């Protein structure tokens, strides 16, 4: 399919070239996606951002995208092709596009590039990501409050800092409202396998979990939760439809505001390289509607936490925080700095599991 899509994209791009310049030259904005738009998760949300750009700027912009671009040599070619065909601003939306983006950017110094979730910048390459752990803090508060078995099941993908940070944030939040809560964590070694994610959810529920959280991409776990009559938290996009009774709340990635802001900057010539890591405060994370069955005081508490994080008065990693061996991670009254968050590779104290290394 990749080949087919790329061939189609190439045809579209060629057609665009042949059409020649319009009267008022629109800014061409390109997007490179790692998955299909129909994944109902990561790529879907990026495409929502693209649509928001189209809506906000109308004739001033012209957007195009390429789906299912593998993270490797193919990425270089696709990104270069977008740059070659007159795109002035190109968003590359997966971690593995980092080096390809930097390489292509060197060849096209006049094109602006934006790379999601990476850490390498250049004069014409900006980076951006969302503080997903802020959403997991709020989800953890709700999960810790509604659990009756005091066991929360967590489906994890790979033991990288991003995922470990999410588990720790959710656990600390759940413990803060419920000192008896414990986490059962299952690593499925995949970002996307609906069958396996569903099986992991079943295993966790069979072992007593009555809330399921996940750091994988499909809604299968939520569907299992619905079937078994337990709670679950949605991931990346609003997953209410897959389990209306089970769905507590979804933490929704929102790229729209950022994309509109950056396209605006490119249009008025103020675009400059930057490193953005935004959360609730920058509207890069949103919450879906809460389940109506959640007690009102829990929703109130969760919303208050969301607002406090957004305005900066609450940090999900506020000390004292120890790791599993009792070593101090964050001192009393301090908050974790970004460098420590980005490299987080230990569980916090209280999680009774061994982190795979």
């Amino acid at each position, binding site marked *: *399919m990749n*080949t*087919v*899509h790329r061939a189609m994209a190439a045809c579209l791009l060629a057609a665009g070239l042949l059409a020649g310049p319009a009267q008022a030259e629109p800014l061409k904005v390109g997007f490179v996606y790692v*998955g*299909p738009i*129909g*994944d*109902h998760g990561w790529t879907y949300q990026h495409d929502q951002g693209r649509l928001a750009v189209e809506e906000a700027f109308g004739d001033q912009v012209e957007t195009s995208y390429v789906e299912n671009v593998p993270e490797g040599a193919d990425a270089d070619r696709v990104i270069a092709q977008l740059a070659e065909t007159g795109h002035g601003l190109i968003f590359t939306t997966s971690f593995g596009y980092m080096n390809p983006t930097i390489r292509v950017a060197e060849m096209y110094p006049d094109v602006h590039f934006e790379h999601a979730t990476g850490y390498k910048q250049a004069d014409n390459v900006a980076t951006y990501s969302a503080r997903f752990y802020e959403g997991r803090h709020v989800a953890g508060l709700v999960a810790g409050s509604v659990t009756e078995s005091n066991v929360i*099941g967590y489906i994890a993908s790979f033991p990288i800092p991003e995922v470990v940070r999410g588990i720790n944030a959710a656990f600390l939040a759940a413990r803060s409202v419920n000192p008896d809560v414990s986490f*059962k*964590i*299952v*690593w*499925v*070694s*995949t970002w*996307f*396998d*609906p*069958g*396996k994610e*569903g*099986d*992991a959810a*079943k*295993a*966790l529920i*069979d*072992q007593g*979990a009555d809330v399921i959280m996940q750091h994988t991409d*499909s*809604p*299968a776990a939520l*569907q*299992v939760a619905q*079937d078994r009559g337990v709670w679950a938290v949605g991931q990346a996009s609003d997953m209410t*439809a*897959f389990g209306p009774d089970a769905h507590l709340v979804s933490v929704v990635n929102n790229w729209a505001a950022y994309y509109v802001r950056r396209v605006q900057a490119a249009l008025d010539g103020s675009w400059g390289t930057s490193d953005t890591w935004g959360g609730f405060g920058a509207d890069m994370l949103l919450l879906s509607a809460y389940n109506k069955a959640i007690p009102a005081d829990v929703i109130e508490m969760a919303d208050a936490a969301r607002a406090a994080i957004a305005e900066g008065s609450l940090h999900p990693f506020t000390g004292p925080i120890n790791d599993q061996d009792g070593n101090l991670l964050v001192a009393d009254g301090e908050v974790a700095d970004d460098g420590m968050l980005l490299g987080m590779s230990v569980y916090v104290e209280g999680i*009774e*599991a*061994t982190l*795979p*290394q």
Partner: protein
Amino acid sequence: MTIDFLVAALLTIITASTPLVFAAVGEIVAEKSGVLNLGVEGMMIVGAIGAFATGIITGDPILAVLAGAASGALMAFIFGCLTLWLLSNQVATGLALTIFGIGLSALVGHQFVGVTFAGLPKLDIPGITDLPFIGPLLFGHDALVYLSVISVIAVAWFLRRTRAGLALRAVGENHDAAHSIGYPVILIRLMAVLFGGVMAGLGGACLSLAYTPLWIENMTAGRGWIALALVVFASWRPWRAFFGAYLFGGITIIQLHAQGLGVAIPSQILSMLPYIATIVVLVLISRDDVRMRFNAPACLGRSFHATG
């Protein structure tokens, strides 16, 4: 560990293994006739969307299952035309069929993302399904689970005990000899390939209707390839494929449970277990070189062209 817990784990193993049973047994029949169809993944995913789309549009689970089987057969028919009449390379055509199937299913499935299906009705015999342990384990599944077991029995019987099964195996062992005594080689192979497609389609229907009743692109996530491996693992014997599928499904589920219970083995090793177990059994089975070669169809993967 309570009985309830054990039953729950076993039920999960059964639903996880059933799609593999379908796909593997179908592929055994195709390969026994001498056709290597590497497009199982593609036929499965098209079966999955065919079944799901029909289920959503008509609301009828039986029609949905039939549509899944028909979608798989349609894919197999394309493969059959290309490899049997146009004599294209089976390996390349099979790979292309998978890529085509994933793309086609994504195209058709675009409008079904985010829709959920109620799932297949489960057998419920008052008094019997409620029996402890035995009840839910033997009498509480959807129809596809029973169909998968029946198909294993039927295929095993067909291949070893019937004249038609003998003809099919003859075509797979030596197509020139089979042709010279008057068997319609191409027709028999086409039938076998179509049967493989029907079974892969049913496996796909299992995924999108029962296992995880929803549609997401690429939801087979490599199960077609595992089914292909199971065929070799089973040395082309239906019952061995059945047990292979349950071994694979069983270890997958048990390692998830082991992680939840906090077993002190690194999760990466646990994740490898199903594959390691498959390889170990494969090595044990294939120690006997003669029997291994005896089981593999001699004309597997070779095109047939009648030269008079």
